[in-house]
């Protein structure tokens, strides 16, 4: 079993699997819509020049998420 960490801790190039969504409300639904469910593999791709948001590869699409939100997504790997 590997360590559980926040999605926001991933560095560009690193991959991990989603273990839990702690987000609430409409962003939670949005994340589910793009297929960010338990077990989904996520790859950290790019960080904005100013450090936030960060873009992740989720099920073939590139999605930018603010660190406020990605810190509420738990991943392992």
């Amino acid at each position, binding site marked *: 079993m590997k360590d559980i960490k926040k999605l926001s801790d991933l560095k560009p190039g690193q991959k991990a699997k989603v273990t839990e969504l702690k987000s609430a409300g*409409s962003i*939670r639904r949005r994340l589910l819509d793009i297929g960010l*469910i338990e077990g989904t593999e996520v790859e950290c791709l790019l960080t904005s*020049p100013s450090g936030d948001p960060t873009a992740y*590869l989720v099920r*073939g699409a*590139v999605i930018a998420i603010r660190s406020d939100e990605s810190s509420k997504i738990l991943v392992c790997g």
Partner: protein
Amino acid sequence: MSTKLNNKSKPGSKTIALAGNPNVGKSTIFNNLTGMNQHTGNWPGKTVTTARGFCRFEGGRYTLVDLPGTYSLTANSPEEEVARDYILFHNPDALVVVCDASCLERSLKLALQAMEITDNVIVCVNLLDEAARKGISLDISALSKSLSVPVVGTVGRKKNSVKDLIKAADSLINSKTPLIPFKVTYGDALEQAIAALEPDLKTIAPKTINTRWLALQLLEEGDAFLDTANRLLSCDLSNIPEISEKLALTRATLAQQGLSGDSLRDHIAQCLTLAAEKIAVKSTRYTKQDYNAMDRKIDKILTSRLTGYPVMIALLIFVFWLTITGANYPSELLSSAFSNIEGRLSLFLQFIKTPKILYEIIIFGIYRVLSFVISVMLPPMAIFFPLFTLLEDLGYLPRVAFNLDKHFKKCSACGKQALTMCMGFGCNAAGVMGCRIIDSPRERLIAIITNNFVPCNGRFPTLIALIAMFFAAGTPSPLDALLTTLMLTGVIIFGIIITFAASKFLSLTFLKGMPSSFALELPPFRRPQLGKILVRSVFDRILFVLGRAAAVAAPAGLFIWTMANVKINGATLLSLASGLLDPFARLLGIDGVILLAFILGLPANEIVIPIIIMSYISAGTITEPGSLQTVREILVSNGWTPLTAANTILLCLMHWPCSTTLITIKKETGSLKWTVLSFILPAIFGMTACFVLTTLCRLIF
């Protein structure tokens, strides 16, 4: 051209609706089928309303409806609600779900949701060419087998390819045997709950409503869905005790099994996603391991810490430089042609013995305003617009939003505001309408109210002309264009900084609140359709500007001429009006005529400079305005200094929105209060800036 927003279709025609994820090329398919020019662009959320068009196929007449792009049909956002409600309440004869071939799984999720609502689904796998380039091949017949609905593979920009789609829709609509699409199953607990509710719902639901879907929504959303359900069933479910009691009971049973609220929603999302994944895997083959490598490389350059901002500014400078240098030649050509024609027109009018007053109205009033707008304002617009559309089609704009998001967050605003600002460069009214892509109502209002700080296409030429005349004049030839470009870029960046300041100000005062969550898709880069861009620029810009020039500039010219010639107690109306404004205008470092021109320019910003020139000319100067050089002489002889020009530039950047934009703001916000604030806020910013600059200059010099 009949893109109507109402819900009528042509009598006797069948309706085909297009649904799909954002940015999968729905609008391109729609345009190709209907021959219309619905604006497409490579960023999510381009279609903000449902567009409508018509097409024929083998004698059948079809009304096509382009629904806004959505990630799901659960009505999370206004666009989703528009799309879902259209399918529910208008019952299209066929629903085409457009999918992205290179991101099939996510598209399929929407298709699976659509297949829960209606049986008449056709899946269209679009962007096959793009997928092929990435080494992704699709087994269309396997996909059709898995989904049990017709599947058509298309390349949206090719006419022949979309014909297959209309053919499939035609045969589906005319087919006698109903489709039984594949349905996602949700595990024993939820399936039992659905089975418990469905029979009772069947007794009251109209035939067109899928009761399985209805039961699922009632279980998932509970009271939040009741209103829609009641409208669908045309009854009040809470008045039907058998159903409302059974619903409460099954929900309670599900809750005992750990399925309620977020956990139930997660469970449903999981089942859907896994089903879509399974089907996608079965019908997709990847031949290149790293099929997105090129996009990633480009993204690194466009968004890295080192190069992200420099590339953004360099692109801005490059686009402006091309616009300014490119516009010079046609501008000169047009203006000499117009003065040539003026000579002939004048001779002709004298020849037919036109009365002096009519002659002056035609030549000095109408003709000169029109020729100024066309020769000075039109060329930069005609060049800037396609260049900007090119960046949009390539997919660069979402990267701008990505780069700038942190600054918007600091102002408690949304990063997507960067996209609406980019639209504002083209037209502020379009920018305001585009604000629908912002989910949070508070952040949407901020974006709407501040959109005017981005100078639109109609204000660009004014800025360019003023900079060229007063700040770059006298510099040797290739350098003056460069100098103008750099100064224009400075003005635009100043406008962007003011946008941030105004957004922050609104977040602290009228629109208090915290930044909401932000998730933005960075779509794959696409090869732009150069031909389409050019055609669209001609129709959207050149013809539009010409039309507006005729509709607004000509009457304005007539109006000004009349004001300059009708006298009350020996003073012309124009001098009375500008005299009234003059004391206040002097505080801002301009004169009454300039302020009056901005007021009269409310219908269209293009006519501000021509009004100023005409007012001066009619007040005594006889010089004929031809080139920018003579315009400069007219302005200088009327007391213009570089300070006057700087203040006029500031006011051009920051004053009230044009009337079209104001009407759009009223429509979008539905509130007079926000419309008034959108009028006052930029005006106060602009006037304050002018006042401060003028006072400082007067103190120093």
